[in-house]
């Protein structure tokens, strides 16, 4: 179906403002093919099925609104206590000097620009491939745009159990930076790697991460999106999971006027496990959208989606989540929960949970709730001596706990918890 002229015009205007980076023939082909996908689907409009809750205007605009870099004061850096391999980006540009030495047992790490310049590279089979499959039935134009125009990023190949997490640190210093980055993670058979992400990256950040987990491989992912208020981010996490493989992802989002986190996960090998979780905390001008699609295409796989949002003072949260169980994906165990805690009457939560099942021997459940602080529980805690603010914080943490529980590493979970506590302390109701 031809696009409406207005959509074509908007899409062409956006494309015209971008420049496709040079690369090897295979890379240019991948980028050109992504560009054709983008042209065919066009940029989203507010009437598109999966953009009803979130206005795409900020992402469609040819340039981002200004976003002042955030002063963290003396706050401890995210994951500061974790022994990790640090890769630092300043407004989307890799900073070699600030980054650690990238040689590490069981790991091959390269800059995207180097990988896509090589005529022969494993990245060829992954770059844009899961993204290309992700548009049916729901188009993800910003992911196609990303594959076409990403200027930097990192490609990671894990060949064994990696002892330290790879930590991607996205610094934001330029108030008008507009950054498109693409990451590849290839987890080979039996390998195990943890990837951490932290920081806002830019005034506007478009990020894709494509993760391919081979049989018996494991991928762990913990992300903290940064405390900047004005930043905007549209991110895509793509994953393909082989037999007996594990995928675990958690994202903490506190602040940010506009965040859209999409995930598209394919369970293609039997007995694979995928857990994806998120906690979002918003006070005031805050819009946060999780759009998560999990596809079961193998036998005896397990998937969990756990998303919690704490909203107040006009903050808006959205969740669109789908479990698709394909024909033949028997013994599927699917679970999806999306919940919001509305701390006042001005906050809003929009949810669209979906199940689509074509196999007859599956267990899938989903739930979505929206509620206020339980006054009875609050009174119970206060009657035992907890101050009202402390009691409320305890109940908020309890609400978010199910999502945090998805983080396997205790050290990482503790770091996330301390960020949550910090946010709660700073955002006490007057």
């Amino acid at each position, binding site marked *: 179906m031809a696009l409406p002229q207005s959509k074509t015009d908007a899409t062409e205007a956006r494309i015209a403002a971008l420049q496709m980076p040079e690369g090897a023939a295979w890379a240019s082909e991948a980028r050109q093919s992504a560009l054709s996908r983008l042209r065919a689907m066009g940029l989203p409009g507010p009437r598109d099925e999966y953009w009803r809750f979130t206005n795409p205007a900020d992402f469609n605009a040819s340039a981002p609104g200004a976003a002042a870099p955030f002063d963290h004061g003396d706050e401890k850096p995210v994951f500061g206590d974790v022994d990790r391999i640090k890769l630092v980006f300043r407004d989307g540009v890799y900073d070699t000097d600030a980054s650690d030495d990238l040689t590490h047992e069981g790991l091959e790490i390269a800059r995207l620009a180097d990988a896509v310049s090589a005529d022969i590279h494993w990245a060829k089979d992954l770059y844009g491939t899961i993204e290309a499959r992700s548009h049916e039935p729901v188009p993800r134009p910003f992911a196609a745009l990303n594959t076409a125009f990403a200027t930097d990023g990192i490609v990671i190949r894990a060949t064994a159990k990696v002892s330290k997490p790879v930590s991607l640190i996205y610094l934001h210093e330029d108030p008008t930076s507009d950054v498109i980055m693409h990451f590849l993670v290839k987890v080979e058979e039996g390998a195990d790697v943890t990837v951490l992400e932290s920081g806002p990256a830019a005034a506007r950040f478009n990020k894709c991460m494509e993760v391919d987990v081979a049989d018996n491989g494991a991928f762990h992912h913990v992300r903290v999106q940064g405390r900047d208020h004005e930043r905007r981010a549209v991110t895509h996490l793509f994953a393909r999971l082989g037999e007996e493989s594990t995928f675990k992802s958690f994202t903490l989002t506190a602040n940010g006027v506009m965040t859209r986190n999409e995930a598209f996960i394919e369970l293609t090998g039997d007995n694979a496990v995928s857990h994806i979780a998120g906690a979002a905390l918003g006070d005031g001008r805050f819009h946060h959208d999780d759009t998560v699609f999990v596809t079961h295409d193998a036998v005896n796989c397990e998937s969990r989606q756990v998303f919690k949002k704490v909203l107040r003072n006009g903050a808006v949260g959205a969740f669109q989540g789908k479990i698709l169980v394909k024909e033949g994906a028997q013994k599927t165990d699917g679970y999806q929960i999306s919940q919001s805690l509305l701390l006042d009457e001005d906050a809003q939560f929009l949810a669209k949970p979906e199940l689509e099942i074509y196999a007859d021997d599956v267990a899938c459940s989903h739930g979505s709730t929206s509620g206020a602080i339980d006054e009875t529980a609050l009174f119970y805690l206060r*009657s035992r001596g907890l101050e009202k603010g402390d009691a409320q914080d305890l109940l908020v943490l309890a609400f978010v706990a199910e999502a945090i529980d998805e983080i396997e590493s205790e050290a990482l979970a503790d770091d996330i918890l301390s960020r949550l506590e910090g946010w709660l302390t700073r955002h006490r109701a007057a």
Partner: protein
Amino acid sequence: MLEIKNLHVKLEEEDKEILKGVDLSVPAGSVHAIMGPNGSGKSTLSYVLSGRDGYDVTDGAATLEGEDVLELEPEERAAAGLFLAFQYPVEIPGVGNMTFLRTAVNAQRKARGEEELSAADFLKLIREKAKDLKIDADMLKRPVNVGFSGGEKKRNEILQMAVLEPKMCILDETDSGLDVDAMKLVADGVNALRDAGRSFLVITHYQRLLDHIRPDVVHIMADGKIVKTGGPELALEVEHNGYADILAEVA
């Protein structure tokens, strides 16, 4: 210890008076029981004293060791030494029982200007108290009251009381939903806490709890007032004859 004078209370949401002039004096070290038919205002009295929202005090006063408790926030009342064992203990998913207890103990100590208990000292304290109430490690680890049986919830209330060591303990129908053995266990827990500096107000429908927790004074409450006060024998009278005779007598 606890002095209640001419307490009048109505529901905030509707213009309905529940307490119509309650007078009650519980001296330090004594155990008072309040009995009464359904709807007489017993539970309302416990909620108003502990500071729950939804009630308007229209007249009268309540003081704890001379301090006006009705002016205090619920947490301030707790720090002042008031404790309510809930008729329906609240389930709090996501908050571990142990974390909850430790937070509560330290919040009260902090409010009183005392030093917070160290993790080790707290653990020692809780283990000792939990053992007496037959509360196992698993119950301490689980989220507060979640998945607890009726008896476990009430034991957990008594555990909180034992750990927090309040001066004035109000037990709101702590016997409801308990079998004979569980009631004995709960009563033993309460009796172990009896001492010269601590007072109890035991609210109950039935005399049987009072077989285990022997009261010094028994009050009968009806239609928002204390209508009769006597010794333990008053509870037996209720058990044998019901409330009708007493109510007819005072009418």
